[in-house]
């Protein structure tokens, strides 16, 4: 276990550097937006009759810097605010801090994306093992074809199709909000039930969009493990097939964790479509609303938080991998 802590520290430092780079990117992006939105906001407030001092305080609260300061001072102010978890103030939701908005939005995205990843990972891996172990039977071909087919459907189309099929053609699932509007949010049984019922389609959209990839990667991984010597040895020693499949699966799962890191980014990216279609007020939804309403502080904040979520999820995935595979710990 001795290499674990330095590795963790290295990963976290790398993550922090990456977050700072992304923050710098959003800072310069705001400056590149045509029409100088920061200056425009200041002018707009001043012409609306707000005193110049008051207008400056408001703009400073929104963006974290003032337009007439030198660029380096603006940059330092901006980064300083972000390090204090202050992402500015929203323009559309006047006076509300971006941090507050995003903290409220975060659970919607994180919970649905995580459930989607877990469901697709588990189901995909089971399918992959079945395909590989019974690869000379008809079921294997059928499952391969099915997985390849699902793998080829983009998230956007998948989510639209699911929404269309199961809320309009066969109205099984509710549509349009994360819970029934008549219920008051709280830790009550009907409310939680409604939350889960409404989450079925979005989670299914996340899960189905990445399921095929897992099944196909697991299949080839299992097939390569099947050729290993220890499998032959276990067979010769007469281990039960069920125990052998357990050994095989545990070894074959390992390479999939490198794919997991890429998948996490893909899933968080897909939240943009899925939350727009199923009307979930998550991070992706915030990002689109912000761009649509020219709410640049909220846009920069949402983008930063989505990236942070991906970086944190990657670090966690890396550590699950280290915990499972004893070989890379040394």
């Amino acid at each position: 276990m001795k290499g674990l802590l330095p590795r963790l520290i290295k990963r976290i430092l790398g993550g922090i550097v990456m977050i700072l780079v992304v923050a710098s990117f959003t800072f310069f992006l705001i400056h590149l937006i045509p029409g100088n939105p920061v200056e425009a906001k200041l002018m707009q407030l001043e012409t609306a009759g707000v005193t110049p001092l008051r207008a400056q305080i408001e703009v400073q609260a929104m963006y974290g810097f003032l337009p007439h300061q030198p660029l380096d001072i603006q940059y330092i102010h901006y980064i300083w605010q972000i390090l204090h978890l202050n992402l500015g103030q929203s323009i559309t939701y006047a006076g509300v801090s971006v941090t507050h908005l995003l903290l409220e939005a975060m659970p919607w995205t994180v919970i649905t994306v995580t459930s989607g990843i877990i469901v697709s990972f588990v189901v995909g891996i089971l399918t992959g093992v079945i395909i590989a172990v019974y690869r000379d039977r008809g079921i294997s071909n059928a499952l391969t074809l099915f997985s390849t087919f699902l793998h080829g459907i983009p998230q956007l189309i998948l989510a639209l199709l699911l929404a269309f099929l199961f809320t309009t053609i066969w109205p099984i699932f509710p549509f349009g909000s994360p819970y029934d509007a008549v219920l008051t949010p709280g830790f009550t049984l009907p409310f939680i039930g409604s939350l889960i019922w409404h989450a079925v389609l979005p989670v299914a959209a996340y899960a189905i969009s990445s399921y095929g990839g897992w099944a196909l990667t697991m299949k080839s991984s299992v097939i390569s493990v099947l050729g290993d010597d220890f499998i032959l040895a276990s067979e010769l020693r007469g281990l039960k097939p069920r125990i052998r499949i357990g050994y095989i699966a545990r070894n074959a799962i390992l390479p999939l964790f490198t794919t997991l890191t890429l998948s996490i980014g893909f899933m968080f990216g897909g939240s943009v479509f899925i939350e727009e279609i199923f009307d979930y007020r998550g991070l992706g939804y915030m990002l689109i609303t912000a761009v649509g309403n020219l709410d640049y502080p909220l846009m920069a904040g949402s983008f930063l938080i989505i990236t942070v979520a991906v970086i944190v999820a990657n670090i966690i995935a890396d550590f699950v991998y280290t915990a499972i595979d004893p070989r890379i710990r040394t």
Partner: protein
Amino acid sequence: MSTASAAFPGAASPPHHRPSLLTISWRAITRKPSRVIGITIILFFTLMAIFGPTLYPKQLPINPAELYAPPSWAHPLGTDFEGTSVLAEIITGSRYVLSAAALAAVFTIGFGTLAGVVSGYFLGSTDQIIMRVTDFILTIPGFPLLIVLSTVWSFGSPIAMGLVLGLTGWGGLARAVRSQTLSLRERGFIEAARGLGLSNAHIITREILPNISPYIAMNLLLSVTGGIYAEVGLFFLGVIPFQASNWGVMLNLAFGNGALYTPQALLYMLSPMACILLVTFGIVLTLDAFDEILNPRLREG
């Protein structure tokens, strides 16, 4: 093909008659019916993108008397919420979508191959810097990045769209090309080329690139699908202003006009989706033919 001519392509012409690329392609494609279907789909959509828009006026007519009309001879796919023929919209919209996706694929392949080969061939600090940038690109979720970029970048022309999709999408390919280059550079014929004192540029363009070209060509086709998804997604979300209709705009307007609750709007919403899936299907079916055309080892069998 003998090992000698594989080691020095172009150095000595093989003694026996070599079939031309066209003959090889024809043979490879006609070997399996699935490949014929795949290439037919691709050709069909390419022709639609090139010649289709010339069949229709620049501004498609609207007809308030025929909103969401069912399929008929005049409108084989029905009409949309303004009474415009859906088929006409699909055909005129194909040019932007497909040309931007093709350009995106070219840019992705260009950047990815360049970064991957340079990184894997020169190693050292060049490799470290390039791989750091690659990791960065791969970590940032691509789609949100595109949305944010839409505030400063005009996606109006297919080239602008293709360039951005290429710039944000080359990470995965660069990594794969790097690992292929790494294993190639240890092989005997590359060492021989280095021993002969051939320049790095020569080794990269004449020895390494031909060997990874099948992989690159397959990724070129795959990147087209990625490009279509990304641009259609951007138009669907409505973050980029649009001048003319295309498949993504159709999905946006269908969704925005409540097509999800309107069963009559089924065809309007399904048509662009079906086109996207068809193109993907065609590309996937063609992929294995590509492998055979470009990989001499498979051609023998």
